[in-house]
């Protein structure tokens, strides 16, 4: 809405403040249980930033989170809560690996385009089911996407065992379908960072252009802000619901392809939904729906994720504690609307002495 300089400042303050609160809360927890938070946090940060390998791993993790975060954010802008990012990611992963294994002899550019394209379509279709049901029958997209997550999980495991392989893992895709690039791998001493990073940066720019510079993006935002008013203004709510869910799922699917072709190079049976899907939700909330914000918050999450692994063996903080601390940070990030509320109240108090409400 109105973009005063104060609002811009808030947009930066709120996430920073929630991150800080999360770290403080994590530190208090560690103190209560007798661990040294400074040791733990420095083990986490030094572990990542002192080693090119783990930096690379953190960025690799952030790359996928950028896709899932953007995917969640666009549906959120249109007023939907797409819990199904994890399932759509999985759908994209399967599609990308399937195509890559089916046509191993195609030239690299064509094969990669095909694989990524198939992943986008698979993710979009998976999310589109929930979008169409919502648009035409008014079913809750939250429930439908949660259920589709499990459908995707078990369907994936079935496809691996019955179609793509005989055991629990598929073959590794050929060189032509891999997203890894030699100089990046060498630069980070063998980490699994890949060209997904560049795709992510391009997508961040495209997302910004779509949302702020195009009519379609304006309609999506308008429907999210007030569906009734937008319908009155002649926009089709149904069309925008489905469109935003398709883009949302497509982005998640692309994330799945980057995870599959970049991180692993194959597909294996999953025992649970990929956590990258759910962390994408937190990333989007922290980034407040701003694509550049989402990019930076996914880097933060990548660092947290990879860095948490250093806490047990370098700072003596047990694994469970490390998980709780990370979860606390995510919690405060997710609860940033509380902080926003407080900041808003503070400002409205300042402008009008009469106070809140």
């Amino acid at each position, binding site marked *: 809405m109105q973009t005063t300089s104060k609002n811009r400042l808030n947009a930066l303050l709120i996430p920073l403040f929630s991150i800080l609160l999360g770290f403080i809360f994590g530190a208090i927890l560690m103190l209560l249980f007798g661990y040294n938070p400074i040791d733990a946090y420095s083990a986490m940060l030094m572990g990542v930033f002192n080693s090119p390998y783990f930096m690379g791993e953190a960025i690799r993790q952030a790359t996928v989170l950028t896709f899932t975060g953007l995917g969640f954010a666009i549906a959120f802008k249109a007023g939907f809560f797409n819990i199904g990012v994890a399932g759509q990611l999985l759908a994209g992963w399967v599609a990308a690996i399937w195509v890559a294994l089916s046509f191993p002899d195609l030239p690299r550019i064509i094969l990669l385009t095909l694989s990524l394209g198939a992943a986008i379509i698979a993710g979009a279709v998976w999310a589109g089911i929930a979008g169409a049901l919502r648009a035409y029958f008014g079913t809750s997209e939250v429930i439908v996407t949660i259920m589709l997550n499990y459908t995707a999980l078990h369907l994936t495991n079935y496809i691996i065992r019955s179609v793509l392989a005989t055991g629990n893992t598929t073959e590794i895709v050929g060189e032509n379908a891999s997203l890894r690039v030699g100089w990046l791998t060498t630069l980070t001493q063998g980490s699994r960072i890949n060209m997904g990073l560049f795709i992510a940066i391009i997508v961040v720019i495209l997302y910004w252009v779509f949302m702020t510079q195009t009519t379609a993006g304006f309609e999506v935002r308008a429907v999210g802000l007030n569906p009734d008013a937008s319908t009155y203004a002649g926009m089709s709510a149904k069309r925008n619901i489905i469109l935003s869910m398709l883009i949302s799922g497509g982005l998640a699917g692309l994330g799945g392809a980057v995870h599959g072709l970049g991180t692993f190079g194959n597909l294996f049976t999953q025992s649970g939904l990929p956590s*990258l899907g759910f962390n994408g939700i937190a990333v989007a909330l922290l980034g407040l729906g701003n694509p550049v914000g989402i990019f930076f918050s996914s880097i933060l999450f990548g660092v947290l994720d990879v860095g948490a692994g250093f806490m047990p063996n370098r700072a003596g903080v047990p694994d469970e504690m490390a998980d709780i601390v990370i979860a606390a940070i995510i919690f405060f990030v997710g609860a940033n609307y509380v902080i926003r509320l407080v900041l808003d109240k*503070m400002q409205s108090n300042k402008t009008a002495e009469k106070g809140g409400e």
Partner: protein
Amino acid sequence: MSNIKLRSLLAIGSSALLLAACSGEDASDTSTDEPTTEEDTTADSGDTSGDNTESVDFSVAMVTDEGGVDDRSFNQSAWEGIKEWGQENGLEEGSGYAYYQSDDSSDFVPNFNQALADGYDIIYGIGYLLLDSVNQVADQNPDQHFGIVDDISDRDNVVSLTFKDHQAAFLAGVAAAETTETGKVGFIGGIKGPVIDRFQTGFEAGVAHVDDSIDVDVQYAESFGDAGIGQQIAAGMFSNGADIIYHAAGAVGNGVFTEARNRMESDPDNKLWVIGVDRDQEAEGDYDGGNLTLTSTLKQVGNAVVESTKQAIDEGFPGGETIAYGLEKGGVDLVEGNLSEEAWSAVEEARQGVIDGDIEVPEFTYSN
């Protein structure tokens, strides 16, 4: 109103910061104390375990699968073995032996690299899920020694430790068939695949060995970590008349125990049993009024890991080799647990039969 709230919030925030900053010093004080106390205790344990054990200059690390180190089964068994070995040899956790926990499959490779950076002599991947990661890291670091449990790697710097789980599961099947009163037993597997298939095949064969009219209800949880699914499947099996469930599903089994406990506590007359897996799970079966762990199949992952470590120290690393542990080497077994005398003697008989080769236990449900 809201101003006051905000101020108090800020006050809490800033005091928390202060607290963190102040006690940071305290904590670092205690942390400088800690190593000395740790040295004391290791020195003590060195004394008590006798003067003949010298501290070896060797270090071992393990990377868990998604079940985590406290899955009360597979990973925990490996960790207990490594820990015991480390303590016996006067090593310290964190430098002589350590574990790296994986919360997600994308953690496997970074965990191996972390262990590599920390400089361990042998790094074991616990579970077949880690095979691809072990192979990848082994290729990148040809001079480093690795181990894989439950699967076979063809790399020269990796030792493969496998188990004849079907033999132990066969004995579990015999025990279940001798004990069941409803003529119906259940099997809950983790993730479908060759390893768990061994358990299923062995168990079914063991049941049929005693009485082939007994029904075996087989279901898979598609997970090694989700206790909720275990509880759900167990509820279904018990409701359908099974009175014994054997689980081969890691931490999923905790849900099976929970369901059995709940049922036994609300209806003690209707006796239900659970058969544990990988390590003696008797403690998991405690409930108000008794114990419901019938028996447990043992899979001495810890022993196997320690054995191959000792071999590496004494004779050189058995790289590229596959070592299979069966009933005859004590790599797998069945505990007596709460088995009746009759059932136990049937189990003993079957064990001898398997060791002598009179009974051939099939390994896989599918034939190849």
